[in-house]
């Protein structure tokens, strides 16, 4: 099953190539694109990116492993990232994290058995004035409380049972 960019992402990829005098500079944006399209950066996804940019696989791997948003393992359909840094800590981030771990039955770095949720503790999300904050896929949820977390999980579950095929989004692609 050979990987391939969708027509939309293929167009984005072509546009990226035109932005830089050196095609290596398109590597991270292309990896972000692949991460989004394929859900995570499997070995095949990295090989695909390497071939598209005509770069050695080792070069691609070396760069990809440095960046936390370039995921080397599958995450849940809803990837929940809890900021654990200082401003969020002062506003009760640990309570939120404990609560999430308890209701989802997983720890940081784990995925629920149904593949719906994954959980991760992350560093400052630049949302300290509206702490504590969590990010679910592309979206920030600010000024969070345990009650708001419960509502959010419920709405995500509903979303999952209604629509299908939504992919976890991680990282922005121009």
């Amino acid at each position, binding site marked *: 099953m050979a990987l391939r960019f969708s027509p939309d992402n293929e167009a984005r990829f072509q546009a990226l190539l035109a932005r830089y005098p050196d095609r290596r500079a398109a590597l991270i944006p292309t990896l972000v694109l692949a991460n989004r399209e394929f859900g995570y950066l499997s070995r095949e996804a990295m090989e695909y990116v390497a071939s598209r940019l005509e770069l050695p696989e080792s070069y691609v791997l070396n760069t990809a492993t440095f960046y936390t*948003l370039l995921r080397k393992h599958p995450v849940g359909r809803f990837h929940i990232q809890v900021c654990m840094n200082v401003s969020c*800590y002062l506003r009760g981030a640990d309570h939120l994290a404990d609560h999430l771990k308890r209701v989802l039955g997983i720890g940081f770095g784990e995925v629920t058995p149904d593949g719906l949720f994954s959980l991760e503790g992350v560093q400052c999300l630049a949302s*300290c004035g509206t702490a504590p904050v969590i990010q679910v896929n592309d979206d920030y949820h600010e000024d969070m409380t345990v009650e708001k977390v419960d509502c959010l999980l419920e709405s995500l579950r509903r979303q999952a049972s209604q629509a299908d095929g939504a992919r976890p989004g991680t990282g922005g692609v121009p």
Partner: protein
Amino acid sequence: MSENADRSAPPTPPTGPFLLRCRPGEAILRLDDHLTRGGFEPVRKALAMDPDAVTDEVKRASLRGRGGAGFPAGVKWGFLPKDNPKPRYLVVNADEGEPGTFKDRYFLERDPFPLLEGVIIASYAIRANVSYIYIRGEFVKQIRVVEDAIRQLYDRGFLGRNVLGTGYSLDVYVHPGAGAYVCGEESALLESIEGKPGRPRNRPPFPAQVGLFGCPTIINNVETMACVPLVLRHGADAFLKMGVPGDGGPKIYCVSGHVKRPGLYEAPMGTNLKRIIFEFAGGTLDDRPILGVIPGGSSTPVLTADELDVAMDFNSMRAKGSMLGSAATVVFTEGTCPVAVLLRISRFYAHESCGQCTPCREGTGWLERVVESIEHGNGRPGDCDLLLSAAGQIQGNTICALGDAAAMPVQSFVTKFRADFERHIAEGRCPHAHG
């Protein structure tokens, strides 16, 4: 520009807000809405000037970099070699990662045009024809907003070939980050754009000489860029007067932690820290007494309650033994465990060290482990002095300032809250109820 100003006009000082002009809930995302508010007048002004005259104006305004180090922007632009035939680049640092900082995000999601005006003016001043805006990868929505604003500018001739018919050409691109705090460091950021791991470069050469793709490059913070049109609009003298001598302009202060109204506040550079906390942010939660304030982002030395009567500008903060940094003020009140606060910070720097230099790689991990053992009741007598000496060994011995950033909070917390650290060690537990 003041030379050209109409001397007969009464000298009414311009009134703000200059940077945070959107009202709560508002965003200015359509070019027309920006233009009806006088948008792009500063760009037209600049494009009618000689590029070097624009740089001089920014120099005279004493606009100091808002990314943390406070280096004067105009002086930096002046470092570009005059005789290098290579292309030049402007790179905008929108990696916003220093814990406590959330100001650049305002422009990226609610008011992108002043930032882009700054990009056009600065690119013109340094004679760059390509600019990259490096936005942290978590900012998915913000990347879309900036991309959309850029598209509008191309459509209307503010970007691309022959900007506004002046013959000057400029392309602006967004480049996404992918989750690495150290990429906010300017040379790591360049490595990252080039498709490599974000490991800071040895200097010299400085980016102004050998930067992106080996070409002369200027790197500036988002807020710095957003200040540039203000310099052109109001003139260097007026901009300088908005701040303190040698440090001009308005400033965005980020306030978070145990305050009633956390958020962004714009005020003159040099605004008193007490005023920021008690007047703007409404004082502390439940009016509890302050235990400590991290004034300028998690790397800046902590201040105690009796040290808050200080002007928030680059020089005054240095004189107080701390730093303005990114003006990210984190307040914590009595009842908070300072060891636990430091642990969050030390864990962060240990996690984010790129591992390239031994003192930082080994030292940050070591600091984290010792602070953690103290917090968890496993500290040993002498640990405070050990922490101080280990931090001292990192400082000044690393390729980039992340090493210093990890050392300074340890030194300041251990020095200023020493009794509390010693109590953890003596009692073999954290004496504070966490919660």
